[in-house]
């Protein structure tokens, strides 16, 4: 019980420290910006550890972070193999195919107003659907290896990407478009020099949303059949083996991969859409 009390003391202390940092003199410094969330995260982990130990939570219900960390190090080889299978083969390939296809279709839809007016409501509708539900079907169609995972990811990222890109391509000011007309620009010139650059903030918005979707899609699909590696595979079999430490180690892998993926796209966004008001320093 003392450990639990100590957990809350830790919380209060860390919060006070963060309040100091966030409102103190170095409030805008890079160090503070990094330190505050890290302290917050570390506090959560610390509380988790203390509470699990304090309440004697069984390992098979919730392992302590220290145990998870040990497993993470000890089984790193397996985790790496799973990461390659799920992330590189399944999620990433599906992400690339899905996003490219969506941008392609969006460009075609942008060319033909009729198609756009028809496709956009349908796309909006589809983007709101629980597309994960197609996972069992796609696994049946594309087999149990990474191809079916990629297929699920393609379907999942396609519609958000399509809707964003179409919206982006249309997001040019009337004046910007008129300018192109005064130059007697051709359709393709207008596309390359005006609409695609103008659409970039939207496209990146779609790309960012799609990162998490891609990961979820790939992992969910593994629950419906997979080779004997992969994050989703390992999670479901480890639950069966009551190896909860391994389950959490895989969750850490997924969260790390997802965060890095998101971060990479966000970094790319800052470079490509540096001109957008939200990115100007």
């Amino acid at each position, binding site marked *: 019980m003392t450990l639990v009390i100590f957990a809350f003391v830790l919380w209060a202390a860390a919060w006070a420290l963060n309040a100091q940092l*966030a409102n103190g003199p170095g409030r805008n410094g890079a160090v503070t910006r990094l330190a505050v*969330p890290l302290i917050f995260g570390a506090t959560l982990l610390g509380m988790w550890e203390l509470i699990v130990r304090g309440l004697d939570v069984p390992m098979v219900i*919730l392992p302590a972070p220290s145990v998870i960390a040990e497993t993470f190090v000890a089984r790193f080889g397996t985790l790496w193999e799973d990461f390659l299978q799920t992330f590189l083969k399944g999620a990433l390939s599906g992400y690339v195919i899905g996003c490219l296809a969506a941008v392609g279709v969006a460009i075609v839809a942008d060319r033909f107003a009729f198609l756009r007016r028809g496709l956009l*409501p349908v796309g909006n509708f589809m983007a709101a659907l629980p597309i994960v539900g197609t996972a069992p079907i796609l696994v049946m169609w594309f087999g149990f290896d990474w191809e079916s995972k990629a297929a699920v990811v393609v379907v999942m990222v396609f519609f958000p990407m399509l809707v964003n890109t179409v919206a982006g391509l249309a997001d040019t000011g009337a004046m910007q478009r008129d300018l192109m007309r005064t130059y007697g620009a051709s359709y393709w010139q207008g596309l390359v020099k005006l609409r695609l650059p103008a659409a970039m903030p939207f496209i990146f918005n779609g790309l960012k949303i799609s990162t998490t979707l891609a990961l979820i899609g790939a992992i*969910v699909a593994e629950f419906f059949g997979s080779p004997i590696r992969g*994050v*989703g595979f390992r999670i479901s079999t480890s639950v069966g083996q009551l190896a909860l430490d391994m389950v959490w180690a895989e969750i850490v892998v997924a*969260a790390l*991969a997802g965060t890095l993926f998101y971060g990479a796209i966000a970094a790319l966004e800052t470079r490509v859409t540096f001109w957008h008001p939200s990115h100007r320093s």
Partner: protein
Amino acid sequence: MTDTAPLAAQGAGIGRSGRVALWARGFSHALLPVVTVVAALLAIWYLACIPMNASNSVLQAARADVAVSPESASDRRGMSGLALAVRNPGVAVAGAFDQDRARLPAPHQVAAELWAGTVGEPVTSNRSLIWHGWVTLSATLLGFVFGTVLGIALAVGIVHSRVMDMSVMPWAIVSQTVPIIAIAPMIIVVLYSVGIQGIVPKAIISAYLSFFPVVVGMVKGLRSPNGMDLDLMATYGATKVQTFWKLRLPSSMPYLFASLKIGIAASLIGAIVGELPTGASAGLGARLLAGSYYGQTEQIWAALFAAAILAALCVGLLGVIERALLGRMGMKT
């Protein structure tokens, strides 16, 4: 009125009232393209049934002693559906649209299954899609309410406290990279062990997925008043609380609704995912899974479409509320 529209003007067609003309224009502008696209998708679907179901069509034909090529089953193994359909066009077309365990059921089969599941069963029956839909919907709505309340609360905190902004926001993003499907069974079991079961665990998964768009949207919304709007409040010597109720909250409404629409869709996904691996015995997710266990593809598709319709209804309803509320607030959407 000095300008009277000439008879030849657009939309002044003979024998049509202006309203009809306007409707007709709206139709050709908005509805016709959608109908066309949907029709095209249906056509593609029907066409796809032929190769997708070819191997089974051919197998069944062979069983019925119809000549097929190649003749031996082991030769056919490994051939693509398209190749089989090309070599046995008649058989493939004949068998494509009414199989029991089709790889891809035809649209009318799915429609029939949907019809049977909704109109053909009393709503209290465990075979009724309406009943299963309600099971999923109730978890969705509860989770949506949890998620929205949590999301708004976090957003209010983030906007007003710098510490929260700096520490919570990054972790909110990280939280969404955690594969919820992985923790879904654990959430359920852990809650089980503290005596919570039924709708609440699913709702928690829903809330987990739906709080994020609400946080992001509300933070944006609560920060949307520009410097001038805020300064105006300062010139009145308004308190933080007054500024929140009279300025920040009203101006966040359009953002709130935009994120609520995303949130409810996410919430529905959460409820279905919560029903998938955890052996929930009812709900659209359970239907989906049961369909998969017993090879009932029509049942999977019907559950999928039911979920789609549910999503559309939820989002549509939010849209109606949005228009009514923002309209009353004098904000055009």
